[in-house]
């Protein structure tokens, strides 16, 4: 239990330190704490991986009261800011949520004493690893990034103390979410992550950033209201407070659990930015890149899907679960489509994140045991690969000054190492035999045995091909060997290199190690819940590993070919192409060649597709709401 408390409490202490120290000392402290958190998470893994679910008895009373006070203080803070910036929707939401919360705390839960408030099982360990290892790495990266950021953006006030403070509070809150068994505590940590996201998005205090921050806040608060409503429902249903324990709730069966499950899954949907709530994630891309990497791709949004995956046993084979899964699947399809038409790199990454979260929710909503396996795998692989990509894009942006994919042509010449890492990251997102494809493969095989699985397979087939398209054309852009470009890579700082190398190694390493992860962590977890488990067959494991090895060996083949080839210029209809690709056009002018990717705005334009997605998903959510109302009444 001390490990859990350490992981939750230590970042808070560091966060407070962050408010006090300045640059040089801050660097040391962050690196040391990152190491500490990483090692602590690893220690957790080693100590607990072969034990089943372990519960920890922490007394409910003082902790919950402190949480309540903090929540009220935060509500007041948001109220003040909401009024100051005239965001009345946010004000309304926070008033509603605070009101419900007061009703809950004061009126309903006076006599309860739930005991198993913290717990640890294999899924929590996996999430803790992601937060502890990847989260810490991103914090280290943020050191170098924020320094360059402020050198470039001299008009933005240097609020790095606040920045790192919030970053570590956020890590603590995430650990809290995955270690809490008590739903009220989960809610508390959940709300903390919302606030962290709000502050970090609005870091630059430009009008655009502020608006996007409030957008994110409102949508997450909508989820928060639903969450609070679920808590009230539980308190009314079972005054003893036993159902506040997550494991009890989940195992109590459909009748008792479905209403809070759907409400909390709604909160998960808003936090994971599925349609119709995806605009906040796209808007959050104005934040500095470490924020995008940490919150909006690997961790906070994963909390949203984490809670939905937790409730999957309740949702399995129900109409409500099916609707939630459909929302996820439609999000996957449409977000992948929109990503084709985007040329802003961070927006592509954002839509890809939304799409993958949709896929995870689709798996969790249908909820059979093999789909759970897929969902957890997807969480792992996506977190690693996507954070790597975000960090690389951040580095590229700082060097070449642009986020546009069209400006990244020839990156393999200008920034060879970064381009290679991006290549590996992107390969990790869609190429066999890397993780996401393993998940896609397992998903198809799992959906086929689920009721109405055909719909999901069709969506997966088309959405998957969209995915191939937008990643491949980006890959192609960065590997084109344009001549006569200068190398701009050398000024990247040491810590950044370390982080990027480690993440790249993780992308490959986790793929190689996934049989182990599956056998020791994921399969026991699923066995506990469903009584049966699954994995890939031995033969297929072997083939996957072979393919990865082949892929790794291939680049060495290049060593054979280094010498002995004659180099010529590319073919441009007989025009000379040494140096810049120029040709003489009409009236004797020299025109330069420019190549750009297809974006197909007519078919995949953001506005049109988003509109369709919003309509469809609101419709589905309304249906779910009606069904739910029927259950309550």
């Amino acid at each position, binding site marked *: 239990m001390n490990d859990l408390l350490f992981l939750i409490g230590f970042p808070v202490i560091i966060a407070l330190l962050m408010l006090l120290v300045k640059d040089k000392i801050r660097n040391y402290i962050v690196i040391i704490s990152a190491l500490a958190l990483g090692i602590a998470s690893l220690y957790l893994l080693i100590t607990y991986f072969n034990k089943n679910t372990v519960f920890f008895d922490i007394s409910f009373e003082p902790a919950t009261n402190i949480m309540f006070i903090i929540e009220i203080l935060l509500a007041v803070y948001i109220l003040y800011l909401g009024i100051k910036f005239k965001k009345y929707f946010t004000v309304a939401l926070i008033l509603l949520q605070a009101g419900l919360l007061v009703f809950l705390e004061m009126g309903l839960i006076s006599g309860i004493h739930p005991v198993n408030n913290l717990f640890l099982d294999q899924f929590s360990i996996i999430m803790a690893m992601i937060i502890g290892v990847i989260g810490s790495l991103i914090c280290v990266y943020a050191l170098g990034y924020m320094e360059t950021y402020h050198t470039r953006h001299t008009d933005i006030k240097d609020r790095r103390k606040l920045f790192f403070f919030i970053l570590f509070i956020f890590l603590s809150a995430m650990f809290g979410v995955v270690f809490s068994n008590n739903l009220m505590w989960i809610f508390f940590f959940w709300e903390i992550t919302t606030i962290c996201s709000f502050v970090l998005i609005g870091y630059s205090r430009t009008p655009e950033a502020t608006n996007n921050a409030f957008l994110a806040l409102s949508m997450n608060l909508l989820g928060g209201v639903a969450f609070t409503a679920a808590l009230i429902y539980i308190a009314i249903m079972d005054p003893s407070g036993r159902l506040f324990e997550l494991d009890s709730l989940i195992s109590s069966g459909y009748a008792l659990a479905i209403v809070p499950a759907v409400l909390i899954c709604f909160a998960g949907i808003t936090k994971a930015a599925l349609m119709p709530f995806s605009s906040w994630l796209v808007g959050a891309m104005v934040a500095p890149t470490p924020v995008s990497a940490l919150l909006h791709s690997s961790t906070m949004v994963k909390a949203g899907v984490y809670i939905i995956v937790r409730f999957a046993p309740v949702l399995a084979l129900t109409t409500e679960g099916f609707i939630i899964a459909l929302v996820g699947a439609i999000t996957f399809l449409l977000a992948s489509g929109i990503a084709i038409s985007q040329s802003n790199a961070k927006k592509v990454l954002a839509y890809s994140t939304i799409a993958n979260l949709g896929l995870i929710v689709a798996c969790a909503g249908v909820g059979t045991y093999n789909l759970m396996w897929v969902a957890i795998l997807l969480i792992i692989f996506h977190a690693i690969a996507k954070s790597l990509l975000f960090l690389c894009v951040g580095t590229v942006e700082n060097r070449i000054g642009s986020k546009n994919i069209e400006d990244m042509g020839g990156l393999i010449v200008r920034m060879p190492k970064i381009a290679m890492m991006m290549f590996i990251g992107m390969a990790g997102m869609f190429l066999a035999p890397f993780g996401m*494809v393993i998940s896609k493969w397992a998903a198809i095989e799992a959906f086929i045995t689920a009721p109405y699985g055909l719909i999901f397979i069709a969506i997966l087939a088309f959405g998957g091909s969209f995915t191939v398209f937008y990643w491949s054309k980006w890959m192609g852009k960065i590997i084109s060997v344009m001549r006569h470009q200068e190398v701009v890579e050398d000024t990247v700082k040491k810590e950044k290199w370390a982080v990027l190398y480690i993440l790249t190694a993780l992308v490959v390493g986790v793929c190689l190690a996934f049989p182990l992860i599956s056998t020791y962590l994921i399969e026991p977890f699923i066995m506990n819940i469903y009584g049966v488990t699954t994995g890939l067959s031995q033969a297929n494991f072997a083939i996957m590993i072979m393919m990865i090895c082949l892929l790794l060996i291939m680049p060495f083949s290049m060593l054979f070919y280094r010498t002995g080839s004659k180099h010529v210029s590319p073919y441009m209809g007989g025009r000379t192409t040494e140096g810049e690709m120029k040709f003489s056009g009409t009236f004797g002018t020299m025109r330069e060649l420019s190549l750009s990717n297809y974006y197909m705005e007519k078919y995949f334009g953001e506005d049109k597709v988003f509109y369709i997605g919003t309509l469809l998903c609101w419709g589905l959510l309304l249906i779910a709401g009606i069904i739910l109302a029927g259950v309550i009444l």
Partner: protein
Amino acid sequence: MNAEPVISLVNAVLFVLIAPLVGGLIAGIDRKVTARMQGRVGPPVLQPFYDVGKLFEKENMVVTVTQHFYVLSYLVFMVVAGALFFSGGDMLLVIFAFTLSHIFLVLGAYASYSPYSHIGAERELIQIIAYEPMIIFTAVGMYMVTQSFNVSAIVNSGIPIILYLPGVFIGYLIVLTIKLRKSPFDLSTSHHAHQEIVKGVTTDFSGSNLGKIEIAHWYEYVFLLGVVYLFFGFNPVLAVAAIIIAYFLEILIDNTISRVKWQLTLRSAWLIAGTLGIVNLGVLYYLKGVIMP
């Protein structure tokens, strides 16, 4: 069950060794038949082998050394995908390995930064996303009929798959036209005089690299026709006849219909093939009352 892995391995090795010969012969027969349709005499049937032999006699010329890596990967993973298929492996994995190898070809074309290769690469990507949903439906359809994704189980099932999956089969033939790079879908490169974007994807490859790409195409032919065989697996004679008829149809279509734009390619593949596929699968699902856990 000790014989099984050995048989699979033998099959895989046989594929690796024999498929290029078979594929080359198919390519040669293709050119002969095409020539006859056009009222010409045409090259000898062994011509593709002479072509590849000649390509390996040319000097080693590249735009960038990375081309060697991409082409080699294309060939290797094509062989891996085909070997997996013929050794009876998981059909979905075969499809993904297949896509992987094609992506390497696309990347090789992107690497050279020539306008023709670039557009060829974009079009090749469009072709890939055009056919991928349909071949996934093919695999899913086979599962729904035979309850297995493994090619060995599908072939040995003895079920007349074609009777259950007629829509899927027609859809597969449509995307086969795309994969074989036959008119009207030979957008990214073709074996005939191309001239619209020069040679498209293969513009900047020469000599041994081009030879390897050609050999990879031969492996691909054998694999693609192997999938046709699966539909008729219950009767080998019928299956071979079906393959011959299907390929002849492809040559006929190639010589009669002119190339279309990529928009129409995408639309035909997704709307027609996709609808045929999904409707077929949906009907099957409904009729069989299939697969409830």
